[in-house]
Protein backbone atom coordinates (compact mmCIF):
# COMPACT_ATOMS: atom_id res chain seq x y z
CA UNK A 1 0.00 0.00 0.00
CA UNK A 2 1.42 3.30 -1.08
CA UNK A 3 0.88 5.29 2.13
CA UNK A 4 2.65 2.72 4.32
CA UNK A 5 5.89 4.47 5.16
CA UNK A 6 7.37 1.96 7.58
CA UNK A 7 6.68 -1.73 7.31
CA UNK A 8 8.15 -4.12 9.87
CA UNK A 9 7.79 -7.90 9.60
CA UNK A 10 8.87 -10.41 12.26
CA UNK A 11 11.75 -8.15 13.22
CA UNK A 12 14.19 -9.25 15.90
CA UNK A 13 16.63 -6.59 17.03
CA UNK A 14 19.91 -7.42 18.71
CA UNK A 15 22.47 -5.57 20.78
CA UNK A 16 25.89 -7.21 21.14
CA UNK A 17 24.40 -10.50 19.88
CA UNK A 18 21.71 -10.34 22.56
CA UNK A 19 18.13 -10.14 21.38
CA UNK A 20 16.29 -7.11 22.75
CA UNK A 21 13.05 -7.45 20.82
CA UNK A 22 11.61 -10.35 18.89
CA UNK A 23 8.91 -10.89 16.32
CA UNK A 24 7.89 -7.25 15.98
CA UNK A 25 5.45 -6.64 13.13
CA UNK A 26 3.58 -3.46 12.29
CA UNK A 27 2.81 -1.01 9.52
CA UNK A 28 3.06 2.71 10.05
CA UNK A 29 1.25 4.87 7.55
CA UNK A 30 1.81 8.49 6.65
CA UNK A 31 0.40 10.67 9.42
CA UNK A 32 0.59 7.94 12.06
CA UNK A 33 2.64 8.04 15.24
CA UNK A 34 4.11 5.01 17.00
CA UNK A 35 5.28 5.29 20.58
CA UNK A 36 7.96 2.86 21.73
CA UNK A 37 7.77 2.51 25.49
CA UNK A 38 10.16 0.67 27.75
CA UNK A 39 12.37 0.95 30.77
CA UNK A 40 15.98 2.11 30.51
CA UNK A 41 18.00 -0.65 28.89
CA UNK A 42 14.97 -2.38 27.39
CA UNK A 43 16.29 -1.92 23.86
CA UNK A 44 14.44 1.17 22.62
CA UNK A 45 17.54 2.72 21.08
CA UNK A 46 18.63 -0.53 19.44
CA UNK A 47 15.17 -1.10 18.01
CA UNK A 48 14.98 2.43 16.62
CA UNK A 49 18.45 2.14 15.07
CA UNK A 50 17.37 -1.15 13.52
CA UNK A 51 14.33 0.55 12.01
CA UNK A 52 16.52 3.05 10.14
CA UNK A 53 19.13 0.45 9.18
CA UNK A 54 22.00 1.60 11.39
CA UNK A 55 21.92 -1.81 13.08
CA UNK A 56 21.26 -5.02 11.16
CA UNK A 57 18.27 -7.02 12.36
CA UNK A 58 18.90 -10.49 13.79
CA UNK A 59 15.99 -11.64 11.65
CA UNK A 60 12.96 -10.20 9.94
CA UNK A 61 12.68 -7.22 7.70
CA UNK A 62 12.18 -3.48 7.77
CA UNK A 63 11.01 -1.62 4.68
CA UNK A 64 10.79 2.12 4.31
CA UNK A 65 8.35 2.95 1.52
CA UNK A 66 8.96 -0.53 0.15
CA UNK A 67 12.74 -0.38 0.18
CA UNK A 68 15.30 -1.79 2.56
CA UNK A 69 17.24 0.61 4.78
CA UNK A 70 19.78 2.13 4.86
CA UNK A 71 19.60 2.54 1.07
CA UNK A 72 15.91 3.52 1.43
CA UNK A 73 16.93 6.64 3.34
CA UNK A 74 18.35 8.09 0.13
CA UNK A 75 14.87 8.27 -1.37
CA UNK A 76 12.72 8.74 1.72
CA UNK A 77 13.52 11.98 3.57
CA UNK A 78 14.13 10.82 7.12
CA UNK A 79 14.95 12.52 10.39
CA UNK A 80 16.68 10.53 13.10
CA UNK A 81 17.96 11.85 16.41
CA UNK A 82 19.09 9.85 19.41
CA UNK A 83 19.66 12.58 21.95
CA UNK A 84 22.09 15.34 22.79
CA UNK A 85 24.82 12.90 23.84
CA UNK A 86 25.27 12.00 20.17
CA UNK A 87 26.25 15.54 19.17
CA UNK A 88 30.00 16.16 18.75
CA UNK A 89 30.85 18.53 21.59
CA UNK A 90 33.71 20.30 19.80
CA UNK A 91 31.53 21.63 16.97
CA UNK A 92 30.15 25.16 17.09
CA UNK A 93 26.39 25.23 17.69
CA UNK A 94 25.72 27.63 14.81
CA UNK A 95 27.64 25.43 12.37
CA UNK A 96 25.83 22.27 13.45
CA UNK A 97 22.46 23.98 13.30
CA UNK A 98 22.99 25.01 9.70
CA UNK A 99 23.41 21.38 8.60
CA UNK A 100 19.66 20.73 8.53
CA UNK A 101 18.65 23.01 5.68
CA UNK A 102 21.55 25.43 5.45
CA UNK A 103 19.49 27.98 7.39
CA UNK A 104 20.72 29.16 10.75
CA UNK A 105 18.68 27.53 13.51
CA UNK A 106 20.92 28.78 16.31
CA UNK A 107 23.14 31.83 16.29
CA UNK A 108 25.12 30.77 19.36
CA UNK A 109 28.76 30.34 18.28
CA UNK A 110 29.81 28.47 21.41
CA UNK A 111 30.89 24.88 21.13
CA UNK A 112 28.10 22.35 21.64
CA UNK A 113 29.67 21.03 24.86
CA UNK A 114 29.42 24.53 26.37
CA UNK A 115 25.63 24.66 25.92
CA UNK A 116 23.10 23.57 28.51
CA UNK A 117 21.63 20.10 28.11
CA UNK A 118 18.27 21.50 27.09
CA UNK A 119 19.85 23.72 24.43
CA UNK A 120 21.91 20.82 23.07
CA UNK A 121 18.82 18.64 22.83
CA UNK A 122 16.88 21.43 21.11
CA UNK A 123 19.76 22.05 18.69
CA UNK A 124 19.88 18.38 17.73
CA UNK A 125 16.12 18.20 17.25
CA UNK A 126 15.91 21.41 15.22
CA UNK A 127 18.75 20.28 12.98
CA UNK A 128 17.27 16.83 12.39
CA UNK A 129 13.72 18.10 11.91
CA UNK A 130 14.79 21.06 9.78
CA UNK A 131 14.47 19.23 6.46
CA UNK A 132 11.34 19.68 4.36
CA UNK A 133 9.47 17.58 3.60
CA UNK A 134 10.02 14.62 5.93
CA UNK A 135 8.39 11.24 5.32
CA UNK A 136 9.78 9.42 8.34
CA UNK A 137 10.75 10.81 11.72
CA UNK A 138 12.46 8.58 14.28
CA UNK A 139 13.26 10.26 17.57
CA UNK A 140 14.81 8.51 20.55
CA UNK A 141 13.73 10.07 23.87
CA UNK A 142 13.14 13.47 22.24
CA UNK A 143 11.69 15.13 25.36
CA UNK A 144 14.71 14.27 27.49
CA UNK A 145 16.11 17.43 29.06
CA UNK A 146 13.87 19.87 27.17
CA UNK A 147 12.55 22.95 28.95
CA UNK A 148 8.80 23.81 28.76
CA UNK A 149 9.15 26.12 25.76
CA UNK A 150 11.18 23.60 23.84
CA UNK A 151 8.72 20.86 24.77
CA UNK A 152 5.87 22.91 23.32
CA UNK A 153 7.92 23.59 20.18
CA UNK A 154 8.61 19.88 19.74
CA UNK A 155 4.96 18.91 20.16
CA UNK A 156 3.83 21.56 17.67
CA UNK A 157 6.53 20.60 15.16
CA UNK A 158 5.71 16.90 15.35
CA UNK A 159 2.03 17.66 14.88
CA UNK A 160 2.76 19.79 11.84
CA UNK A 161 5.08 17.21 10.28
CA UNK A 162 2.58 14.44 10.95
CA UNK A 163 -0.24 16.45 9.40
CA UNK A 164 1.95 16.97 6.33
CA UNK A 165 2.30 13.23 5.89
CA UNK A 166 5.25 12.10 7.96
CA UNK A 167 5.16 8.82 9.83
CA UNK A 168 6.61 9.29 13.29
CA UNK A 169 8.30 6.87 15.69
CA UNK A 170 8.98 8.19 19.17
CA UNK A 171 10.50 6.43 22.14
CA UNK A 172 10.38 7.29 25.79
CA UNK A 173 10.75 5.65 29.16
CA UNK A 174 8.36 8.24 30.57
CA UNK A 175 4.81 7.30 29.71
CA UNK A 176 3.50 10.83 30.28
CA UNK A 177 5.49 12.01 27.25
CA UNK A 178 3.70 9.71 24.87
CA UNK A 179 0.18 9.81 26.28
CA UNK A 180 -2.29 11.23 23.79
CA UNK A 181 0.34 11.60 21.08
CA UNK A 182 0.45 8.19 19.42
CA UNK A 183 -1.80 6.05 17.28
CA UNK A 184 -0.01 2.87 18.35
CA UNK A 185 2.19 1.89 21.24
CA UNK A 186 4.92 -0.73 21.31
CA UNK A 187 5.63 -1.84 24.86
CA UNK A 188 9.10 -3.33 25.29
CA UNK A 189 8.17 -5.32 28.35
CA UNK A 190 9.62 -8.68 27.50
CA UNK A 191 11.37 -10.64 24.81
CA UNK A 192 8.33 -10.25 22.56
CA UNK A 193 7.11 -6.63 22.64
CA UNK A 194 3.41 -5.87 22.83
CA UNK A 195 1.84 -3.72 20.16
CA UNK A 196 -1.36 -1.91 21.09
CA UNK A 197 -3.48 0.55 19.15
CA UNK A 198 -4.53 3.71 20.95
CA UNK A 199 -8.23 2.90 20.56
CA UNK A 200 -7.60 -0.44 22.22
CA UNK A 201 -6.47 1.40 25.33
CA UNK A 202 -9.06 4.17 25.16
CA UNK A 203 -12.12 3.97 22.94
CA UNK A 204 -11.79 7.62 21.97
CA UNK A 205 -8.27 6.95 20.71
CA UNK A 206 -6.90 9.67 22.93
CA UNK A 207 -4.95 7.90 25.64
CA UNK A 208 -4.44 9.59 28.97
CA UNK A 209 -1.24 9.08 30.95
CA UNK A 210 -3.09 6.98 33.53
CA UNK A 211 -4.57 4.72 30.87
CA UNK A 212 -1.18 4.30 29.24
CA UNK A 213 0.48 3.46 32.56
CA UNK A 214 -2.26 0.94 33.27
CA UNK A 215 -1.91 -0.66 29.83
CA UNK A 216 1.87 -0.79 30.16
CA UNK A 217 1.59 -2.44 33.59
CA UNK A 218 -0.81 -5.04 32.19
CA UNK A 219 1.52 -5.76 29.29
CA UNK A 220 4.45 -6.13 31.66
CA UNK A 221 2.60 -8.34 34.12
CA UNK A 222 0.93 -10.49 31.47
CA UNK A 223 3.17 -10.22 28.43
CA UNK A 224 1.45 -12.94 26.43
CA UNK A 225 -2.15 -11.84 27.01
CA UNK A 226 -4.04 -8.97 25.53
CA UNK A 227 -4.64 -5.46 26.79
CA UNK A 228 -8.13 -4.70 28.04
CA UNK A 229 -9.78 -1.38 27.57
CA UNK A 230 -9.41 0.76 30.63
CA UNK A 231 -11.68 3.69 29.92
CA UNK A 232 -14.69 2.33 31.75
CA UNK A 233 -16.12 0.63 28.69
CA UNK A 234 -16.77 -3.08 28.68
CA UNK A 235 -13.29 -4.39 28.28
CA UNK A 236 -12.96 -6.66 25.30
CA UNK A 237 -9.64 -8.33 24.79
CA UNK A 238 -7.91 -7.34 21.61
CA UNK A 239 -5.33 -8.71 19.33
CA UNK A 240 -1.82 -7.56 19.99
CA UNK A 241 -0.14 -7.70 16.66
CA UNK A 242 -1.13 -6.93 13.15
Amino acid sequence: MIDVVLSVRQLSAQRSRQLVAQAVSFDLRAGQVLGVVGANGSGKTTLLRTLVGFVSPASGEVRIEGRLPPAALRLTPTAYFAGEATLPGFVRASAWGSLGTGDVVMTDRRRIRALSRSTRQLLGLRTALGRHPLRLIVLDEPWEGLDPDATRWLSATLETKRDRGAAVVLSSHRLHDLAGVCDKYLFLTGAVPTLVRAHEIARSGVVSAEQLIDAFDRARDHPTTAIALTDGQPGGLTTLDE
Partner: protein
Amino acid sequence: MATLLFLVAFFRAAPPVTRPMVLCLWATAGLAGVAMAAGLAGGATVLTPLLVLHIFAASSGFGLAMKRGHYDLVLARGVSVIGLMTAHWLASIIPGLTAWLAVAALEPVLSRAEPAALTSGSVFAFLLASSFPWAFTTPLPRFTAAIGWLVLLVTSLAIIPSGQLHLLGALRAPQPTALGALAVVAYPMGLLGVDALHLPAGTISPGVGCALLSMLCAAAWNRRADVPLETAA
Protein backbone atom coordinates in the same frame (compact mmCIF):
# COMPACT_ATOMS: atom_id res chain seq x y z
CA MET B 1 25.62 16.01 -5.92
CA ALA B 2 23.43 17.14 -3.02
CA THR B 3 24.91 14.35 -0.89
CA LEU B 4 28.45 15.42 -1.81
CA LEU B 5 27.69 19.04 -0.90
CA PHE B 6 26.15 17.91 2.36
CA LEU B 7 29.24 15.83 3.19
CA VAL B 8 31.47 18.84 2.48
CA ALA B 9 29.28 21.04 4.69
CA PHE B 10 29.23 18.39 7.40
CA PHE B 11 32.98 17.91 7.58
CA ARG B 12 33.51 21.67 7.46
CA ALA B 13 31.27 21.96 10.51
CA ALA B 14 32.60 18.84 12.24
CA PRO B 15 36.16 18.32 10.98
CA PRO B 16 37.87 15.07 12.00
CA VAL B 17 41.17 16.91 12.48
CA THR B 18 41.14 19.24 15.45
CA ARG B 19 41.79 22.94 14.97
CA PRO B 20 44.98 22.92 17.11
CA MET B 21 46.32 20.13 14.88
CA VAL B 22 45.52 22.11 11.74
CA LEU B 23 47.25 25.16 13.24
CA CYS B 24 50.28 23.02 14.09
CA LEU B 25 50.45 21.75 10.51
CA TRP B 26 50.32 25.26 9.11
CA ALA B 27 52.82 26.58 11.67
CA THR B 28 55.18 23.75 10.69
CA ALA B 29 54.75 24.59 7.01
CA GLY B 30 55.45 28.25 7.85
CA LEU B 31 58.55 27.36 9.84
CA ALA B 32 59.70 25.16 6.96
CA GLY B 33 59.39 28.21 4.69
CA VAL B 34 61.42 30.34 7.12
CA ALA B 35 64.08 27.63 7.47
CA MET B 36 64.36 27.29 3.69
CA ALA B 37 64.54 31.06 3.15
CA ALA B 38 67.21 31.42 5.83
CA GLY B 39 69.18 28.54 4.34
CA LEU B 40 69.01 26.66 7.64
CA ALA B 41 67.39 23.56 6.21
CA GLY B 42 65.74 22.24 3.11
CA GLY B 43 64.63 19.11 1.34
CA ALA B 44 63.75 16.15 3.52
CA THR B 45 64.73 17.95 6.73
CA VAL B 46 61.79 20.37 6.62
CA LEU B 47 59.36 17.68 5.53
CA THR B 48 60.07 15.27 8.40
CA PRO B 49 58.17 17.19 11.13
CA LEU B 50 55.32 17.75 8.72
CA LEU B 51 55.12 14.01 8.00
CA VAL B 52 55.10 13.15 11.73
CA LEU B 53 52.31 15.69 12.38
CA HIS B 54 50.40 14.34 9.40
CA ILE B 55 50.57 10.83 10.86
CA PHE B 56 48.92 12.22 14.01
CA ALA B 57 46.34 14.17 12.00
CA ALA B 58 45.42 11.10 9.94
CA SER B 59 44.93 9.04 13.12
CA SER B 60 41.51 10.61 13.44
CA GLY B 61 39.43 7.71 14.83
CA PHE B 62 36.45 7.15 12.58
CA GLY B 63 34.70 4.21 14.21
CA LEU B 64 34.46 5.60 17.70
CA ALA B 65 32.89 8.86 16.53
CA MET B 66 30.44 6.85 14.46
CA LYS B 67 29.46 4.69 17.42
CA ARG B 68 28.93 7.81 19.51
CA GLY B 69 26.30 8.87 17.01
CA HIS B 70 28.23 11.86 15.64
CA TYR B 71 27.44 10.82 12.08
CA ASP B 72 23.78 9.89 12.58
CA LEU B 73 22.78 13.04 10.71
CA VAL B 74 24.79 11.88 7.69
CA LEU B 75 23.65 8.25 7.85
CA ALA B 76 20.01 9.37 8.10
CA ARG B 77 20.41 10.92 4.66
CA GLY B 78 21.16 7.52 3.20
CA VAL B 79 24.91 8.04 2.85
CA SER B 80 26.54 4.60 2.94
CA VAL B 81 29.10 3.81 5.60
CA ILE B 82 31.71 3.42 2.85
CA GLY B 83 30.83 6.84 1.42
CA LEU B 84 30.99 8.39 4.88
CA MET B 85 34.28 6.61 5.57
CA THR B 86 35.82 7.89 2.34
CA ALA B 87 34.71 11.44 3.09
CA HIS B 88 36.12 11.13 6.61
CA TRP B 89 39.45 9.87 5.28
CA LEU B 90 39.70 12.74 2.80
CA ALA B 91 38.76 15.26 5.49
CA SER B 92 41.44 13.72 7.72
CA ILE B 93 44.25 14.05 5.19
CA ILE B 94 43.34 17.36 3.52
CA PRO B 95 44.93 19.58 6.23
CA GLY B 96 48.22 17.68 5.96
CA LEU B 97 48.00 17.61 2.18
CA THR B 98 47.48 21.36 1.89
CA ALA B 99 50.39 22.06 4.26
CA TRP B 100 52.53 19.63 2.23
CA LEU B 101 51.57 21.29 -1.06
CA ALA B 102 52.31 24.70 0.45
CA VAL B 103 55.86 23.55 1.24
CA ALA B 104 56.11 22.06 -2.27
CA ALA B 105 55.11 25.45 -3.70
CA LEU B 106 57.64 27.32 -1.54
CA GLU B 107 60.56 24.97 -2.19
CA PRO B 108 61.52 26.12 -5.70
CA VAL B 109 61.35 29.74 -4.59
CA LEU B 110 62.99 29.61 -1.17
CA SER B 111 65.11 26.51 -0.88
CA ARG B 112 68.69 26.22 -2.02
CA ALA B 113 68.47 22.44 -1.70
CA GLU B 114 66.93 20.15 -4.29
CA PRO B 115 63.08 20.24 -4.05
CA ALA B 116 61.95 17.15 -2.12
CA ALA B 117 58.22 17.45 -1.43
CA LEU B 118 57.04 16.04 -4.74
CA THR B 119 59.63 13.36 -5.40
CA SER B 120 58.21 9.87 -5.80
CA GLY B 121 59.69 8.84 -2.42
CA SER B 122 58.02 11.78 -0.66
CA VAL B 123 54.70 11.02 -2.36
CA PHE B 124 54.97 7.36 -1.25
CA ALA B 125 55.83 8.47 2.29
CA PHE B 126 52.84 10.84 2.34
CA LEU B 127 50.49 8.13 1.05
CA LEU B 128 51.75 5.66 3.66
CA ALA B 129 51.30 8.29 6.38
CA SER B 130 47.78 8.96 5.09
CA SER B 131 46.60 5.37 4.96
CA PHE B 132 48.08 3.23 7.76
CA PRO B 133 47.32 5.58 10.67
CA TRP B 134 43.77 6.26 9.49
CA ALA B 135 43.03 2.58 8.90
CA PHE B 136 44.51 1.40 12.20
CA THR B 137 42.70 4.09 14.18
CA THR B 138 39.33 3.20 12.66
CA PRO B 139 38.15 1.15 15.66
CA LEU B 140 40.33 3.01 18.17
CA PRO B 141 40.46 6.43 19.82
CA ARG B 142 42.08 9.37 18.04
CA PHE B 143 45.92 9.36 17.80
CA THR B 144 46.21 5.71 18.89
CA ALA B 145 47.95 4.54 15.70
CA ALA B 146 50.32 7.52 15.68
CA ILE B 147 51.24 7.04 19.33
CA GLY B 148 51.77 3.31 18.80
CA TRP B 149 53.95 3.97 15.76
CA LEU B 150 55.97 6.60 17.63
CA VAL B 151 56.52 4.29 20.61
CA LEU B 152 57.64 1.44 18.34
CA LEU B 153 59.95 3.66 16.31
CA VAL B 154 61.56 5.37 19.28
CA THR B 155 61.98 2.05 21.09
CA SER B 156 63.50 0.39 18.02
CA LEU B 157 65.87 3.26 17.38
CA ALA B 158 66.88 3.31 21.05
CA ILE B 159 67.62 -0.39 21.37
CA ILE B 160 69.25 -1.00 18.00
CA PRO B 161 72.70 0.59 17.81
CA SER B 162 72.82 2.98 14.86
CA GLY B 163 69.19 2.04 14.23
CA GLN B 164 68.45 4.98 11.94
CA LEU B 165 71.48 4.24 9.78
CA HIS B 166 70.51 0.56 9.60
CA LEU B 167 66.97 1.44 8.49
CA LEU B 168 68.17 4.02 5.94
CA GLY B 169 70.82 1.65 4.61
CA ALA B 170 68.34 -1.18 4.19
CA LEU B 171 65.78 1.17 2.64
CA ARG B 172 68.16 2.50 0.00
CA ALA B 173 70.05 -0.75 -0.64
CA PRO B 174 70.22 -1.82 -4.30
CA GLN B 175 68.89 -5.26 -3.40
CA PRO B 176 65.53 -5.69 -1.59
CA THR B 177 65.73 -6.97 1.96
CA ALA B 178 63.14 -7.74 4.60
CA LEU B 179 64.51 -4.92 6.75
CA GLY B 180 64.24 -2.53 3.81
CA ALA B 181 60.59 -3.46 3.27
CA LEU B 182 59.95 -3.04 7.00
CA ALA B 183 61.74 0.32 7.00
CA VAL B 184 59.31 1.67 4.39
CA VAL B 185 56.47 1.18 6.87
CA ALA B 186 58.28 1.84 10.14
CA TYR B 187 60.43 4.73 8.98
CA PRO B 188 58.69 6.48 6.06
CA MET B 189 60.88 9.57 6.64
CA GLY B 190 63.61 7.57 4.98
CA LEU B 191 61.74 7.93 1.69
CA LEU B 192 61.56 11.74 1.79
CA GLY B 193 63.36 13.32 -1.15
CA VAL B 194 64.27 9.92 -2.59
CA ASP B 195 63.44 8.78 -6.09
CA ALA B 196 61.50 5.73 -5.00
CA LEU B 197 60.96 4.58 -8.57
CA HIS B 198 64.61 3.63 -8.69
CA LEU B 199 64.44 1.63 -5.47
CA PRO B 200 63.98 -2.14 -5.82
CA ALA B 201 60.33 -3.07 -6.25
CA GLY B 202 60.75 -5.59 -3.45
CA THR B 203 61.51 -2.76 -1.03
CA ILE B 204 58.60 -0.47 -1.89
CA SER B 205 55.81 -2.83 -2.95
CA PRO B 206 55.24 -4.64 0.39
CA GLY B 207 54.72 -1.30 2.16
CA VAL B 208 52.38 0.03 -0.52
CA GLY B 209 50.55 -3.30 -0.58
CA CYS B 210 50.15 -3.28 3.19
CA ALA B 211 48.86 0.31 3.08
CA LEU B 212 46.23 -0.63 0.49
CA LEU B 213 45.35 -3.76 2.43
CA SER B 214 44.93 -1.80 5.66
CA MET B 215 42.50 0.57 3.92
CA LEU B 216 40.56 -2.35 2.44
CA CYS B 217 40.41 -4.04 5.85
CA ALA B 218 39.15 -0.80 7.42
CA ALA B 219 36.52 -0.52 4.69
CA ALA B 220 35.43 -4.14 5.17
CA TRP B 221 35.30 -3.72 8.94
CA ASN B 222 33.25 -0.54 8.68
CA ARG B 223 30.95 -2.02 6.05
CA ARG B 224 30.01 -5.06 8.04
CA ALA B 225 29.98 -3.38 11.44
CA ASP B 226 26.65 -2.16 12.73
CA VAL B 227 26.42 1.28 14.24
CA PRO B 228 25.06 0.67 17.71
CA LEU B 229 25.01 3.65 19.97
CA GLU B 230 27.82 3.92 22.43
CA THR B 231 27.49 7.42 23.80
CA ALA B 232 30.40 8.98 25.60
CA ALA B 233 30.23 8.89 29.37
